[in-house]
Protein backbone atom coordinates (compact mmCIF):
# COMPACT_ATOMS: atom_id res chain seq x y z
CA UNK A 1 0.00 0.00 0.00
CA UNK A 2 1.16 3.54 -0.71
CA UNK A 3 1.04 5.82 2.28
CA UNK A 4 -0.08 9.32 1.43
CA UNK A 5 2.46 12.15 1.57
CA UNK A 6 0.38 14.00 4.14
CA UNK A 7 0.44 10.97 6.42
CA UNK A 8 4.23 10.72 6.22
CA UNK A 9 4.94 14.44 6.65
CA UNK A 10 2.27 14.87 9.32
CA UNK A 11 3.37 11.76 11.16
CA UNK A 12 7.01 12.86 11.03
CA UNK A 13 6.23 16.34 12.40
CA UNK A 14 4.08 14.93 15.19
CA UNK A 15 6.67 12.26 16.00
CA UNK A 16 9.35 14.98 16.14
CA UNK A 17 7.24 17.02 18.55
CA UNK A 18 6.64 13.95 20.75
CA UNK A 19 10.35 13.11 20.66
CA UNK A 20 11.32 16.65 21.65
CA UNK A 21 8.76 16.63 24.47
CA UNK A 22 9.88 13.26 25.81
CA UNK A 23 13.60 14.01 25.76
CA UNK A 24 13.42 17.72 26.60
CA UNK A 25 15.80 17.56 29.58
CA UNK A 26 18.50 15.97 27.40
CA UNK A 27 17.88 18.12 24.34
CA UNK A 28 17.78 21.45 26.14
CA UNK A 29 21.04 23.33 26.64
CA UNK A 30 20.05 25.08 29.84
CA UNK A 31 17.32 24.97 32.43
CA UNK A 32 14.37 26.80 30.88
CA UNK A 33 13.33 28.58 34.08
CA UNK A 34 16.33 28.93 36.34
CA UNK A 35 19.20 29.74 33.99
CA UNK A 36 18.56 33.44 33.65
CA UNK A 37 21.61 35.58 33.11
CA UNK A 38 21.17 39.24 32.41
CA UNK A 39 24.64 39.34 30.82
CA UNK A 40 23.19 37.41 27.87
CA UNK A 41 19.90 39.31 27.59
CA UNK A 42 18.28 39.56 24.13
CA UNK A 43 21.04 37.86 22.19
CA UNK A 44 19.99 37.18 18.58
CA UNK A 45 20.19 33.58 17.28
CA UNK A 46 23.80 32.39 16.97
CA UNK A 47 25.88 29.23 17.27
CA UNK A 48 25.77 29.50 21.04
CA UNK A 49 22.14 30.61 21.41
CA UNK A 50 20.41 28.69 18.59
CA UNK A 51 17.10 30.52 18.91
CA UNK A 52 18.46 33.59 20.72
CA UNK A 53 17.78 34.65 24.30
CA UNK A 54 15.04 36.67 25.98
CA UNK A 55 15.14 39.80 28.16
CA UNK A 56 16.19 37.72 31.18
CA UNK A 57 18.90 36.00 29.18
CA UNK A 58 17.16 32.60 29.10
CA UNK A 59 17.87 30.33 26.14
CA UNK A 60 14.82 30.36 23.82
CA UNK A 61 15.78 27.01 22.28
CA UNK A 62 15.68 25.34 25.68
CA UNK A 63 12.38 27.02 26.51
CA UNK A 64 10.79 25.94 23.19
CA UNK A 65 11.99 22.38 23.77
CA UNK A 66 10.50 22.31 27.27
CA UNK A 67 7.36 24.04 26.02
CA UNK A 68 6.66 21.02 23.84
CA UNK A 69 5.96 19.02 27.01
CA UNK A 70 3.23 21.35 28.17
CA UNK A 71 1.68 21.99 24.76
CA UNK A 72 1.56 18.30 23.85
CA UNK A 73 0.30 17.21 27.25
CA UNK A 74 -2.54 19.70 26.97
CA UNK A 75 -3.25 18.73 23.36
CA UNK A 76 -3.26 14.96 23.88
CA UNK A 77 -4.90 14.72 27.30
CA UNK A 78 -7.65 17.27 26.67
CA UNK A 79 -8.50 15.70 23.31
CA UNK A 80 -8.64 12.24 24.89
CA UNK A 81 -11.11 13.55 27.45
CA UNK A 82 -13.12 15.16 24.64
CA UNK A 83 -13.16 11.95 22.62
CA UNK A 84 -14.29 9.83 25.56
CA UNK A 85 -17.09 12.28 26.42
CA UNK A 86 -18.15 12.70 22.79
CA UNK A 87 -18.15 8.98 21.95
CA UNK A 88 -19.98 8.01 25.14
CA UNK A 89 -22.71 10.60 24.64
CA UNK A 90 -23.03 10.13 20.87
CA UNK A 91 -23.02 6.34 20.96
CA UNK A 92 -25.61 6.02 23.70
CA UNK A 93 -27.79 8.78 22.23
CA UNK A 94 -27.81 7.18 18.80
CA UNK A 95 -28.35 3.70 20.18
CA UNK A 96 -31.06 4.33 22.74
CA UNK A 97 -32.75 7.32 21.11
CA UNK A 98 -35.76 8.76 22.92
CA UNK A 99 -35.42 11.44 25.57
CA UNK A 100 -31.73 10.75 26.11
CA UNK A 101 -31.08 11.43 22.43
CA UNK A 102 -33.04 14.69 22.63
CA UNK A 103 -31.10 15.70 25.72
CA UNK A 104 -27.68 14.94 24.20
CA UNK A 105 -28.66 16.69 20.98
CA UNK A 106 -29.73 19.77 22.91
CA UNK A 107 -26.48 19.76 24.86
CA UNK A 108 -24.44 19.37 21.66
CA UNK A 109 -26.26 22.24 20.00
CA UNK A 110 -25.66 24.37 23.06
CA UNK A 111 -21.93 23.60 22.95
CA UNK A 112 -21.80 24.35 19.23
CA UNK A 113 -23.64 27.63 19.70
CA UNK A 114 -21.11 28.96 22.23
CA UNK A 115 -17.62 29.45 20.79
CA UNK A 116 -15.60 26.84 22.63
CA UNK A 117 -12.73 29.22 23.36
CA UNK A 118 -15.11 31.60 25.13
CA UNK A 119 -16.47 28.69 27.11
CA UNK A 120 -12.95 27.56 28.02
CA UNK A 121 -12.13 31.16 29.01
CA UNK A 122 -15.09 31.19 31.37
CA UNK A 123 -14.04 27.92 32.98
CA UNK A 124 -10.43 29.15 33.30
CA UNK A 125 -11.67 32.34 34.90
CA UNK A 126 -13.45 30.28 37.56
CA UNK A 127 -10.71 27.69 38.13
CA UNK A 128 -7.76 30.05 37.84
CA UNK A 129 -4.67 29.53 35.69
CA UNK A 130 -2.58 26.36 35.71
CA UNK A 131 -2.10 23.09 33.88
CA UNK A 132 -4.95 21.21 35.61
CA UNK A 133 -7.52 23.89 34.94
CA UNK A 134 -6.31 24.09 31.32
CA UNK A 135 -6.89 20.35 30.91
CA UNK A 136 -10.35 20.60 32.46
CA UNK A 137 -11.33 23.68 30.46
CA UNK A 138 -10.20 22.30 27.10
CA UNK A 139 -11.29 18.74 27.86
CA UNK A 140 -14.89 19.71 28.54
CA UNK A 141 -15.50 22.12 25.69
CA UNK A 142 -14.58 20.40 22.44
CA UNK A 143 -16.50 17.14 22.35
CA UNK A 144 -19.47 18.26 20.25
CA UNK A 145 -18.07 17.27 16.84
CA UNK A 146 -16.96 13.87 18.11
CA UNK A 147 -20.41 13.42 19.63
CA UNK A 148 -22.14 14.26 16.37
CA UNK A 149 -19.96 11.89 14.38
CA UNK A 150 -20.43 9.09 16.91
CA UNK A 151 -24.20 9.57 16.95
CA UNK A 152 -24.47 9.68 13.15
CA UNK A 153 -22.27 6.57 12.78
CA UNK A 154 -24.34 4.74 15.38
CA UNK A 155 -27.57 5.55 13.56
CA UNK A 156 -26.27 4.14 10.29
CA UNK A 157 -24.47 1.16 11.84
CA UNK A 158 -27.48 0.21 13.95
CA UNK A 159 -29.33 -1.12 10.92
CA UNK A 160 -26.37 -3.19 9.70
CA UNK A 161 -26.90 -6.92 9.53
CA UNK A 162 -24.22 -7.76 12.07
CA UNK A 163 -25.71 -5.47 14.70
CA UNK A 164 -29.11 -7.11 14.17
CA UNK A 165 -27.41 -10.50 14.23
CA UNK A 166 -25.70 -9.69 17.52
CA UNK A 167 -29.08 -8.88 19.03
CA UNK A 168 -30.49 -12.16 17.75
CA UNK A 169 -27.51 -13.98 19.28
CA UNK A 170 -28.32 -12.57 22.69
CA UNK A 171 -25.82 -9.72 23.01
CA UNK A 172 -26.80 -7.09 25.58
CA UNK A 173 -26.86 -3.37 24.76
CA UNK A 174 -23.43 -2.67 26.27
CA UNK A 175 -21.82 -5.57 24.44
CA UNK A 176 -23.36 -4.47 21.15
CA UNK A 177 -22.09 -0.92 21.65
CA UNK A 178 -18.57 -1.97 22.62
CA UNK A 179 -17.96 -4.89 20.28
CA UNK A 180 -20.12 -4.08 17.26
CA UNK A 181 -20.60 -0.33 17.04
CA UNK A 182 -17.48 1.26 18.56
CA UNK A 183 -14.82 -0.58 16.50
CA UNK A 184 -16.73 0.20 13.31
CA UNK A 185 -16.79 3.95 13.91
CA UNK A 186 -13.23 4.25 15.19
CA UNK A 187 -11.83 5.52 11.88
CA UNK A 188 -13.63 8.87 11.74
CA UNK A 189 -13.32 9.27 15.53
CA UNK A 190 -9.52 8.96 15.31
CA UNK A 191 -9.41 11.46 12.45
CA UNK A 192 -11.53 13.98 14.38
CA UNK A 193 -9.41 13.34 17.47
CA UNK A 194 -6.15 14.06 15.63
CA UNK A 195 -7.51 17.26 14.16
CA UNK A 196 -8.92 18.20 17.56
CA UNK A 197 -5.49 17.73 19.12
CA UNK A 198 -4.15 20.42 16.80
CA UNK A 199 -7.05 22.62 17.86
CA UNK A 200 -6.27 22.01 21.52
CA UNK A 201 -2.59 22.96 21.05
CA UNK A 202 -3.78 26.21 19.46
CA UNK A 203 -6.34 26.79 22.20
CA UNK A 204 -3.68 26.29 24.87
CA UNK A 205 -1.50 28.84 23.11
CA UNK A 206 -4.41 31.27 22.91
CA UNK A 207 -5.37 30.88 26.57
CA UNK A 208 -1.76 31.16 27.73
CA UNK A 209 -1.29 34.18 25.47
CA UNK A 210 -4.26 35.76 27.19
CA UNK A 211 -2.59 35.04 30.52
CA UNK A 212 -5.13 32.42 31.62
CA UNK A 213 -3.17 29.29 30.82
CA UNK A 214 0.34 28.46 31.85
CA UNK A 215 1.80 31.22 34.01
CA UNK A 216 5.36 32.57 33.53
CA UNK A 217 8.09 31.64 34.20
CA UNK A 218 7.08 28.14 33.05
CA UNK A 219 7.52 27.86 29.32
CA UNK A 220 4.51 27.08 27.18
CA UNK A 221 4.54 28.20 23.57
CA UNK A 222 1.51 30.40 24.14
CA UNK A 223 2.90 32.10 27.24
CA UNK A 224 6.25 32.66 25.47
CA UNK A 225 4.40 34.41 22.64
CA UNK A 226 2.55 36.47 25.18
CA UNK A 227 5.77 37.57 26.86
CA UNK A 228 7.38 38.29 23.50
CA UNK A 229 4.74 40.59 22.08
CA UNK A 230 6.31 43.82 23.39
CA UNK A 231 9.64 43.03 21.79
CA UNK A 232 8.30 41.85 18.46
CA UNK A 233 10.10 44.64 16.58
CA UNK A 234 13.31 44.69 18.62
CA UNK A 235 13.74 40.95 19.23
CA UNK A 236 11.55 39.09 16.71
CA UNK A 237 13.18 35.70 17.47
CA UNK A 238 11.30 35.70 20.78
CA UNK A 239 8.02 35.27 18.91
CA UNK A 240 9.22 33.54 15.74
CA UNK A 241 10.48 30.32 17.33
CA UNK A 242 7.58 29.50 19.68
CA UNK A 243 5.23 30.53 16.86
CA UNK A 244 7.04 28.20 14.47
CA UNK A 245 6.77 25.38 17.02
CA UNK A 246 3.00 25.87 17.28
CA UNK A 247 2.70 26.16 13.52
CA UNK A 248 4.66 22.98 12.78
CA UNK A 249 2.93 20.91 15.47
CA UNK A 250 -0.57 21.95 14.42
CA UNK A 251 0.31 21.53 10.75
CA UNK A 252 1.69 18.08 11.52
CA UNK A 253 -1.46 17.06 13.38
CA UNK A 254 -3.73 18.32 10.63
CA UNK A 255 -1.75 16.52 7.92
CA UNK A 256 -1.72 13.39 10.08
CA UNK A 257 -5.49 13.63 10.47
CA UNK A 258 -5.95 13.96 6.72
CA UNK A 259 -3.60 11.06 6.05
CA UNK A 260 -5.37 8.85 8.60
CA UNK A 261 -8.71 9.67 7.02
CA UNK A 262 -7.42 8.28 3.74
CA UNK A 263 -6.29 4.96 5.16
CA UNK A 264 -9.05 4.48 7.75
CA UNK A 265 -11.76 4.91 5.14
CA UNK A 266 -13.37 1.43 5.02
CA UNK A 267 -13.52 1.63 1.22
CA UNK A 268 -9.79 2.03 0.85
CA UNK A 269 -9.15 -0.49 3.61
CA UNK A 270 -10.89 -3.28 1.74
CA UNK A 271 -8.93 -2.37 -1.36
CA UNK A 272 -5.70 -2.70 0.56
CA UNK A 273 -6.08 -6.38 1.41
Amino acid at each position, binding site marked *: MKLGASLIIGGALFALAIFVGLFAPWLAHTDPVMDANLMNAEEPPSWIWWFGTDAQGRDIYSRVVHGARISLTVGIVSQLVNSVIGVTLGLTAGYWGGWWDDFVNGLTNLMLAIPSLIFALAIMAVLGPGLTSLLIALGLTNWSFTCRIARASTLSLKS*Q*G*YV*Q*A*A*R*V*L*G*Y*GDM*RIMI*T*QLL*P*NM*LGPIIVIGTLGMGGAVLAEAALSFLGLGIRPPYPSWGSMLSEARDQITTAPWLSIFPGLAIFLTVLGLNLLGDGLRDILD*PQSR*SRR*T
Partner: protein
Amino acid sequence: MTGPPLIEVEDLRIDLDVGPSRVAAVEGVSFRIDRGETFGLVGESGSGKSITALALIGLLRQPLSIGAGAIRFEGREIQGLPAARQRALRGNRIAMIFQEPMTALNPVSPVGRQIAEMFVLHKGKNWREANQLAVEALASVRVPAPERRVNDYPHQLSGGMRQRVMIAIALACGPDLLIADEPTTALDVTVQAEIIELMRNLCAERGTAILMISHDLGLVANVCRRVAVMYAGRIVEQRGSADIFRACAHPYTQGLVDSLPRLGSRAVLGRTRLREIAGVVPAIADFPNGCRFNPRCARATEICRTTAPETTLLGADGLVRCHHHA
Protein backbone atom coordinates in the same frame (compact mmCIF):
# COMPACT_ATOMS: atom_id res chain seq x y z
CA MET B 1 -42.94 -37.39 22.52
CA THR B 2 -43.94 -36.57 26.06
CA GLY B 3 -44.04 -33.16 27.67
CA PRO B 4 -44.63 -29.88 25.89
CA PRO B 5 -43.27 -29.39 22.37
CA LEU B 6 -40.02 -27.44 22.01
CA ILE B 7 -41.79 -24.46 20.59
CA GLU B 8 -45.47 -23.89 20.14
CA VAL B 9 -47.09 -20.97 18.35
CA GLU B 10 -50.77 -20.54 18.96
CA ASP B 11 -53.05 -18.25 17.00
CA LEU B 12 -50.34 -15.64 16.58
CA ARG B 13 -51.26 -12.23 15.25
CA ILE B 14 -48.61 -9.63 14.42
CA ASP B 15 -49.82 -6.07 14.06
CA LEU B 16 -48.25 -3.45 11.84
CA ASP B 17 -48.67 0.13 12.98
CA VAL B 18 -49.50 2.34 10.02
CA GLY B 19 -50.12 5.80 11.37
CA PRO B 20 -53.52 5.91 13.03
CA SER B 21 -54.57 2.33 12.32
CA ARG B 22 -53.17 -1.16 12.73
CA VAL B 23 -53.28 -3.95 10.25
CA ALA B 24 -52.58 -7.60 10.91
CA ALA B 25 -49.47 -8.56 8.96
CA VAL B 26 -49.70 -12.10 10.28
CA GLU B 27 -52.92 -13.68 11.57
CA GLY B 28 -54.05 -16.96 13.07
CA VAL B 29 -50.66 -18.63 12.71
CA SER B 30 -50.29 -21.82 14.74
CA PHE B 31 -47.66 -24.51 14.58
CA ARG B 32 -45.48 -26.60 16.83
CA ILE B 33 -41.98 -27.92 16.51
CA ASP B 34 -40.83 -30.89 18.55
CA ARG B 35 -37.32 -31.51 19.81
CA GLY B 36 -34.96 -32.37 16.95
CA GLU B 37 -37.67 -31.89 14.36
CA THR B 38 -37.27 -30.06 11.07
CA PHE B 39 -40.05 -27.70 10.13
CA GLY B 40 -40.29 -25.49 7.07
CA LEU B 41 -42.10 -22.24 6.51
CA VAL B 42 -42.59 -21.45 2.83
CA GLY B 43 -44.01 -18.33 1.26
CA GLU B 44 -43.42 -15.48 -1.14
CA SER B 45 -41.82 -12.20 -0.09
CA GLY B 46 -44.24 -10.36 2.15
CA SER B 47 -46.11 -13.47 3.26
CA GLY B 48 -45.02 -12.85 6.85
CA LYS B 49 -42.60 -15.73 7.33
CA SER B 50 -39.61 -13.65 8.42
CA ILE B 51 -41.54 -11.54 10.93
CA THR B 52 -43.00 -14.75 12.36
CA ALA B 53 -39.40 -15.86 13.01
CA LEU B 54 -38.55 -12.51 14.61
CA ALA B 55 -41.56 -12.90 16.88
CA LEU B 56 -40.26 -16.32 17.93
CA ILE B 57 -37.05 -14.83 19.27
CA GLY B 58 -38.83 -11.86 20.79
CA LEU B 59 -37.25 -9.24 18.56
CA LEU B 60 -40.20 -7.56 16.89
CA ARG B 61 -39.62 -3.83 16.94
CA GLN B 62 -41.92 -0.92 16.21
CA PRO B 63 -43.93 -0.65 13.99
CA LEU B 64 -44.42 -4.41 14.41
CA SER B 65 -45.82 -5.94 17.58
CA ILE B 66 -47.52 -9.12 18.73
CA GLY B 67 -51.26 -8.41 18.72
CA ALA B 68 -52.63 -11.69 20.00
CA GLY B 69 -51.77 -15.31 20.53
CA ALA B 70 -48.95 -17.05 22.36
CA ILE B 71 -45.46 -18.33 21.69
CA ARG B 72 -44.32 -20.98 24.13
CA PHE B 73 -40.76 -22.30 24.42
CA GLU B 74 -40.74 -25.57 26.38
CA GLY B 75 -44.19 -24.71 27.64
CA ARG B 76 -43.27 -21.24 28.95
CA GLU B 77 -44.54 -18.16 27.26
CA ILE B 78 -41.66 -16.13 25.82
CA GLN B 79 -43.44 -12.79 25.85
CA GLY B 80 -43.95 -12.81 29.60
CA LEU B 81 -40.24 -13.34 30.35
CA PRO B 82 -38.15 -10.40 31.55
CA ALA B 83 -35.74 -8.94 28.99
CA ALA B 84 -32.65 -10.52 30.55
CA ARG B 85 -34.22 -14.01 30.47
CA GLN B 86 -35.25 -13.52 26.85
CA ARG B 87 -31.70 -12.49 26.01
CA ALA B 88 -30.34 -15.59 27.72
CA LEU B 89 -32.52 -17.69 25.40
CA ARG B 90 -31.34 -15.93 22.25
CA GLY B 91 -28.14 -17.35 20.85
CA ASN B 92 -28.02 -19.93 23.62
CA ARG B 93 -31.22 -21.99 23.29
CA ILE B 94 -32.61 -20.44 20.10
CA ALA B 95 -30.13 -19.37 17.42
CA MET B 96 -30.59 -17.95 13.99
CA ILE B 97 -28.70 -17.73 10.73
CA PHE B 98 -29.44 -15.20 8.06
CA GLN B 99 -29.82 -14.72 4.38
CA GLU B 100 -26.80 -12.46 3.98
CA PRO B 101 -23.61 -13.91 5.38
CA MET B 102 -21.84 -10.86 3.92
CA THR B 103 -23.48 -8.42 6.29
CA ALA B 104 -24.22 -10.61 9.30
CA LEU B 105 -20.58 -10.71 10.43
CA ASN B 106 -18.83 -7.78 12.07
CA PRO B 107 -16.30 -6.53 9.47
CA VAL B 108 -13.72 -5.28 11.98
CA SER B 109 -13.54 -8.36 14.18
CA PRO B 110 -11.72 -11.63 13.38
CA VAL B 111 -14.22 -14.47 12.86
CA GLY B 112 -12.69 -16.54 15.65
CA ARG B 113 -13.37 -13.79 18.10
CA GLN B 114 -16.97 -13.57 16.97
CA ILE B 115 -17.43 -17.28 17.61
CA ALA B 116 -15.57 -17.12 20.92
CA GLU B 117 -17.79 -14.26 22.05
CA MET B 118 -20.73 -16.70 22.18
CA PHE B 119 -18.94 -18.93 24.70
CA VAL B 120 -17.98 -15.94 26.80
CA LEU B 121 -21.48 -14.50 26.63
CA HIS B 122 -23.60 -17.57 27.24
CA LYS B 123 -21.34 -20.19 28.78
CA GLY B 124 -19.27 -18.00 31.08
CA LYS B 125 -15.95 -19.17 29.61
CA ASN B 126 -12.83 -17.04 29.80
CA TRP B 127 -11.29 -15.84 26.54
CA ARG B 128 -8.56 -18.47 26.46
CA GLU B 129 -11.00 -21.37 26.66
CA ALA B 130 -13.42 -19.59 24.34
CA ASN B 131 -10.76 -19.12 21.67
CA GLN B 132 -9.88 -22.80 21.88
CA LEU B 133 -13.57 -23.73 21.53
CA ALA B 134 -13.85 -21.35 18.57
CA VAL B 135 -11.20 -23.31 16.70
CA GLU B 136 -13.12 -26.53 17.39
CA ALA B 137 -16.36 -24.87 16.27
CA LEU B 138 -14.74 -23.78 13.00
CA ALA B 139 -13.42 -27.29 12.48
CA SER B 140 -16.89 -28.73 13.05
CA VAL B 141 -18.29 -26.67 10.16
CA ARG B 142 -15.51 -28.11 7.96
CA VAL B 143 -13.49 -24.96 7.53
CA PRO B 144 -10.00 -26.04 6.50
CA ALA B 145 -7.06 -24.96 8.70
CA PRO B 146 -9.34 -23.58 11.44
CA GLU B 147 -6.47 -22.60 13.73
CA ARG B 148 -5.33 -20.12 11.08
CA ARG B 149 -8.78 -19.13 9.87
CA VAL B 150 -9.86 -17.87 13.30
CA ASN B 151 -7.65 -14.85 12.73
CA ASP B 152 -9.22 -13.98 9.38
CA TYR B 153 -11.55 -11.07 8.95
CA PRO B 154 -14.92 -11.65 7.25
CA HIS B 155 -13.85 -9.91 4.03
CA GLN B 156 -11.06 -12.45 3.60
CA LEU B 157 -13.57 -15.32 3.38
CA SER B 158 -15.81 -16.43 0.52
CA GLY B 159 -19.60 -16.34 0.81
CA GLY B 160 -19.82 -20.05 1.53
CA MET B 161 -17.09 -19.81 4.19
CA ARG B 162 -18.87 -16.90 5.83
CA GLN B 163 -22.10 -18.86 6.00
CA ARG B 164 -20.14 -21.72 7.59
CA VAL B 165 -18.83 -19.25 10.17
CA MET B 166 -22.42 -18.06 10.78
CA ILE B 167 -23.48 -21.66 11.34
CA ALA B 168 -20.56 -22.14 13.73
CA ILE B 169 -21.63 -19.05 15.68
CA ALA B 170 -25.28 -20.12 15.72
CA LEU B 171 -24.53 -23.68 16.84
CA ALA B 172 -21.73 -22.67 19.24
CA CYS B 173 -23.82 -22.95 22.37
CA GLY B 174 -25.67 -26.07 21.28
CA PRO B 175 -29.10 -24.45 20.84
CA ASP B 176 -32.31 -26.47 20.86
CA LEU B 177 -33.74 -24.60 17.90
CA LEU B 178 -31.97 -23.18 14.86
CA ILE B 179 -33.95 -20.70 12.80
CA ALA B 180 -32.56 -20.53 9.28
CA ASP B 181 -33.98 -17.56 7.37
CA GLU B 182 -33.26 -18.16 3.68
CA PRO B 183 -29.81 -19.47 4.60
CA THR B 184 -28.65 -20.14 1.06
CA THR B 185 -30.36 -17.49 -1.05
CA ALA B 186 -27.20 -15.40 -1.43
CA LEU B 187 -24.98 -18.34 -2.35
CA ASP B 188 -24.05 -20.23 -5.51
CA VAL B 189 -26.12 -23.33 -6.22
CA THR B 190 -23.22 -25.72 -5.63
CA VAL B 191 -22.32 -24.04 -2.35
CA GLN B 192 -26.02 -24.07 -1.39
CA ALA B 193 -26.14 -27.85 -1.42
CA GLU B 194 -23.02 -28.11 0.75
CA ILE B 195 -24.30 -25.62 3.29
CA ILE B 196 -27.71 -27.29 3.55
CA GLU B 197 -26.07 -30.69 3.95
CA LEU B 198 -23.74 -29.33 6.64
CA MET B 199 -26.54 -27.66 8.54
CA ARG B 200 -28.72 -30.74 8.40
CA ASN B 201 -25.97 -33.09 9.54
CA LEU B 202 -24.80 -30.89 12.41
CA CYS B 203 -28.34 -30.41 13.68
CA ALA B 204 -29.13 -34.11 13.39
CA GLU B 205 -25.96 -34.99 15.36
CA ARG B 206 -26.82 -32.59 18.14
CA GLY B 207 -30.57 -33.04 18.19
CA THR B 208 -31.16 -29.41 17.25
CA ALA B 209 -34.56 -28.65 15.76
CA ILE B 210 -34.58 -26.56 12.58
CA LEU B 211 -37.12 -23.97 11.54
CA MET B 212 -36.28 -23.29 7.94
CA ILE B 213 -37.72 -20.27 6.22
CA SER B 214 -37.55 -20.05 2.46
CA HIS B 215 -39.42 -19.22 -0.70
CA ASP B 216 -38.01 -22.40 -2.22
CA LEU B 217 -40.61 -25.15 -1.74
CA GLY B 218 -38.36 -27.81 -3.21
CA LEU B 219 -35.49 -26.98 -0.85
CA VAL B 220 -37.70 -26.87 2.22
CA ALA B 221 -39.48 -30.11 1.37
CA ASN B 222 -36.07 -31.69 0.93
CA VAL B 223 -34.76 -30.58 4.33
CA CYS B 224 -37.85 -30.62 6.52
CA ARG B 225 -40.16 -33.30 7.80
CA ARG B 226 -43.15 -31.00 7.89
CA VAL B 227 -43.91 -27.90 5.84
CA ALA B 228 -46.27 -25.00 6.34
CA VAL B 229 -47.14 -22.78 3.38
CA MET B 230 -47.84 -19.13 4.20
CA TYR B 231 -49.76 -16.76 2.03
CA ALA B 232 -50.50 -13.13 2.90
CA GLY B 233 -49.94 -13.58 6.63
CA ARG B 234 -51.83 -16.87 7.05
CA ILE B 235 -50.77 -20.48 6.99
CA VAL B 236 -52.82 -21.91 4.13
CA GLU B 237 -51.60 -25.47 4.28
CA GLN B 238 -49.50 -27.58 6.59
CA ARG B 239 -48.41 -31.10 5.63
CA GLY B 240 -45.77 -33.70 5.95
CA SER B 241 -43.25 -32.80 3.28
CA ALA B 242 -43.71 -36.12 1.50
CA ASP B 243 -47.39 -35.35 0.99
CA ILE B 244 -46.98 -31.84 -0.26
CA PHE B 245 -45.96 -32.81 -3.78
CA ARG B 246 -48.16 -35.87 -4.00
CA ALA B 247 -51.40 -34.49 -2.65
CA CYS B 248 -51.39 -30.82 -1.85
CA ALA B 249 -54.83 -29.57 -0.95
CA HIS B 250 -54.69 -25.79 -1.26
CA PRO B 251 -54.83 -24.20 -4.72
CA TYR B 252 -51.92 -21.90 -3.79
CA THR B 253 -49.70 -24.83 -2.85
CA GLN B 254 -50.81 -26.52 -6.06
CA GLY B 255 -49.73 -23.41 -7.92
CA LEU B 256 -46.33 -23.43 -6.21
CA VAL B 257 -45.81 -27.10 -6.99
CA ASP B 258 -46.84 -26.60 -10.61
CA SER B 259 -44.45 -23.70 -11.01
CA LEU B 260 -41.44 -25.86 -10.10
CA PRO B 261 -39.54 -27.20 -13.07
CA ARG B 262 -39.26 -30.98 -12.74
CA LEU B 263 -36.78 -33.21 -14.43
CA GLY B 264 -38.43 -34.97 -17.38
CA SER B 265 -41.58 -32.87 -17.28
CA ARG B 266 -43.05 -31.52 -20.50
CA ALA B 267 -42.19 -27.96 -19.48
CA VAL B 268 -38.54 -28.73 -18.91
CA LEU B 269 -38.37 -30.52 -22.24
CA GLY B 270 -39.65 -27.31 -23.81
CA ARG B 271 -42.99 -28.65 -25.00
CA THR B 272 -45.16 -26.51 -22.72
CA ARG B 273 -44.64 -23.40 -20.68
CA LEU B 274 -44.02 -23.66 -16.95
CA ARG B 275 -47.25 -22.89 -15.11
CA GLU B 276 -47.40 -19.70 -13.12
CA ILE B 277 -49.74 -18.18 -10.55
CA ALA B 278 -51.41 -15.14 -12.04
CA GLY B 279 -51.19 -11.82 -10.15
CA VAL B 280 -49.05 -10.78 -7.20
CA VAL B 281 -49.21 -11.01 -3.40
CA PRO B 282 -51.50 -8.23 -2.13
CA ALA B 283 -49.97 -5.47 0.01
CA ILE B 284 -50.50 -5.77 3.75
CA ALA B 285 -52.71 -2.71 3.85
CA ASP B 286 -55.21 -4.08 1.35
CA PHE B 287 -55.63 -7.75 1.90
CA PRO B 288 -58.85 -8.84 0.15
CA ASN B 289 -61.93 -9.85 2.14
CA GLY B 290 -62.70 -13.50 2.63
CA CYS B 291 -59.98 -15.86 1.55
CA ARG B 292 -56.89 -13.78 0.86
CA PHE B 293 -55.97 -15.88 -2.13
CA ASN B 294 -59.34 -15.51 -3.87
CA PRO B 295 -58.38 -12.88 -6.51
CA ARG B 296 -55.69 -15.21 -7.86
CA CYS B 297 -57.51 -18.48 -7.37
CA ALA B 298 -59.00 -20.56 -10.18
CA ARG B 299 -61.39 -22.33 -7.81
CA ALA B 300 -62.71 -19.14 -6.20
CA THR B 301 -66.50 -18.84 -5.80
CA GLU B 302 -68.81 -16.38 -4.06
CA ILE B 303 -68.15 -17.70 -0.55
CA CYS B 304 -64.37 -17.20 -1.02
CA ARG B 305 -64.94 -13.47 -1.52
CA THR B 306 -67.02 -13.01 1.61
CA THR B 307 -65.95 -15.53 4.23
CA ALA B 308 -62.45 -16.41 5.39
CA PRO B 309 -62.11 -20.21 5.39
CA GLU B 310 -61.48 -22.02 8.67
CA THR B 311 -58.74 -24.60 8.97
CA THR B 312 -59.72 -28.14 8.07
CA LEU B 313 -57.77 -31.09 9.42
CA LEU B 314 -56.34 -33.43 6.85
CA GLY B 315 -55.23 -36.82 8.13
CA ALA B 316 -52.94 -37.05 11.15
CA ASP B 317 -50.95 -33.82 11.03
CA GLY B 318 -52.12 -31.95 7.95
CA LEU B 319 -54.38 -28.96 7.78
CA VAL B 320 -55.63 -26.66 5.07
CA ARG B 321 -57.43 -23.34 4.99
CA CYS B 322 -59.69 -23.44 1.89
CA HIS B 323 -63.39 -23.74 1.10
CA HIS B 324 -62.68 -25.89 -1.93
CA HIS B 325 -59.67 -27.91 -0.94
CA ALA B 326 -58.82 -31.00 -2.92
